[in-house]
């Protein structure tokens, strides 16, 4: 994927990713923090028992980060550790290697939104403190770090392109 940038990172307790987005920094921030239902793969990356219809990041330090089920239930994922719109967000990811919520587990996701031009934003993501997964750190690092296959990305791209041209 041309727009995904290889950071060649080797810290065993951290996964780093970056992507270039053709959108202004403020929009990138807004979509990331307020419109998770538009992009988070809720069909698979969820932990609740019911189908997930949205995920919410409460816009303040200490706010909850949680998924919303179609029956009105919510299911915590973590907390907001830093809230600095439109440039920096740090979230606690308190979901363990069995995909159960464990309050205080404390792996961290830092997201930086860097304006490269008026209409281009570089988004850097680091998922760190993976040592909090204990002896399953390497397994989890693989899950978070691995590059998805081209076929899936192309299929996903085709869907988005179709939506955009509707």
């Amino acid at each position, binding site marked *: 994927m041309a727009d995904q940038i290889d950071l060649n990172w080797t810290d065993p307790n951290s996964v780093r990713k970056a992507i270039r987005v053709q959108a202004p920094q403020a929009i990138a921030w807004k979509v990331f923090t307020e419109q998770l239902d538009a*992009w988070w793969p809720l069909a698979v990356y969820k932990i609740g028992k019911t189908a997930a219809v949205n995920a919410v990041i409460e816009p303040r330090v200490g706010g909850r980060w949680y998924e919303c089920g179609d029956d009105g239930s919510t299911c915590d994922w973590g907390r907001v550790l830093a809230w600095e719109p439109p440039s920096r967000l740090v979230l606690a990811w308190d979901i363990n290697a069995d995909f159960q919520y464990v309050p205080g587990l404390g792996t961290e996701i830092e997201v930086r939104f860097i304006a490269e031009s008026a209409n281009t934003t570089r988004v850097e993501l680091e998922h760190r403190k993976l040592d909090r997964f204990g002896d399953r750190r390497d397994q989890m690092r693989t899950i978070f770090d691995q590059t998805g296959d081209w076929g899936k990305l192309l299929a996903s791209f085709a869907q988005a392109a179709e939506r955009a041209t509707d």
Partner: protein
Amino acid sequence: MINAERALDALGDPTRRRVFAKLRNRVCTAGELAQGMEVSRPAVSQHLQVLRAAGLVVVRADGTRRLYQVDSRGIDAVRRWFDGFWDETLESFRQAAESAANEKGRP
């Protein structure tokens, strides 16, 4: 509804993993699966029930025989869990952010 958690739970059992592994490249009956395993045929049938409920295996009738085979839907769900969590998630985010930027740019 097929989801990765159920599939992963089902594969958490070592005997079920062996049953499932045997089905990877072929279609067969519960009796054939039980051959060479240390568990009884009824036990194999029970494991097949769990694999079916998890969306990993499907069964079809062939005359009087019931033939089991891998259900690719369950495999896809599991693969998505393990394939590039952040790559997939960020790519999806990029598409959403660019759609939002395009909408805003329109007159």
